[in-house]
């Protein structure tokens, strides 16, 4: 019990990311409104991006920008002093992609509303089944 509690406290951020991910999954599966489903999808995406960015964090490191001066240009860069920038660059792409999917999803939701006059999933399914 003590060991499990220690594990939870030492990695509290990972547990919160998983909570956030499950909140998003709940929104996508259990919510009836289409816009609520899209909000759930975005929460899920940002939880995964948060997890990836948190991998690059180092203790006692600074942001990955090398200061410009005469001495530094000839010295070797110590990687331990800088936060790993690779996950940041990858997740920058993922943020832009998530906004693109959000735009397409909302456009489809608006089209569905114009045809069926409702955003609720069960009412749309009922209208499709009874022509």
């Amino acid at each position: 019990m003590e060991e499990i509690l220690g594990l939870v406290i030492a990695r509290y951020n990972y547990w919160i990311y998983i909570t956030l991910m499950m909140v998003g999954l709940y929104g996508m599966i259990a919510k009836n409104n289409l816009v609520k489903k899209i909000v759930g999808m975005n929460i899920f995406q940002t939880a995964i991006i948060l997890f990836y960015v948190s991998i690059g964090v180092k203790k006692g490191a600074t942001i990955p920008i090398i200061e410009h001066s005469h001495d530094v240009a000839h010295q070797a860069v110590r990687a331990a002093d800088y936060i790993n920038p690779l996950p940041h660059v990858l997740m920058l792409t993922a943020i832009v992609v998530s906004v693109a999917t959000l735009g397409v999803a909302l456009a489809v939701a608006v089209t569905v509303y114009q045809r069926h006059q409702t955003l609720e999933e069960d009412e749309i399914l009922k209208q499709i089944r009874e022509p």
Partner: protein
Amino acid sequence: MIWQLDLLILTLVVLCGIGALMIRDLLGAAILFGAYSFMMCLLWAIMGAVDVAFTEASVGAGVSTVFFIAAVYHTTRRTKD
């Protein structure tokens, strides 16, 4: 990374996310989602990912909220859950 600040903002992020899913008004959900994105931006600034932080501030908190409000304006605010 200051862990007290990190934990505080992570709690606010989870609360904003749950609130955005639970509120019975789509405009309110859009605004709470904007608050969620902004908290996420602060979290990235704390983690040292400044480039990701200001992309999120402009694209996530700005453009996404505008998209949501435009979609709600063209449809309806009413929701059952």
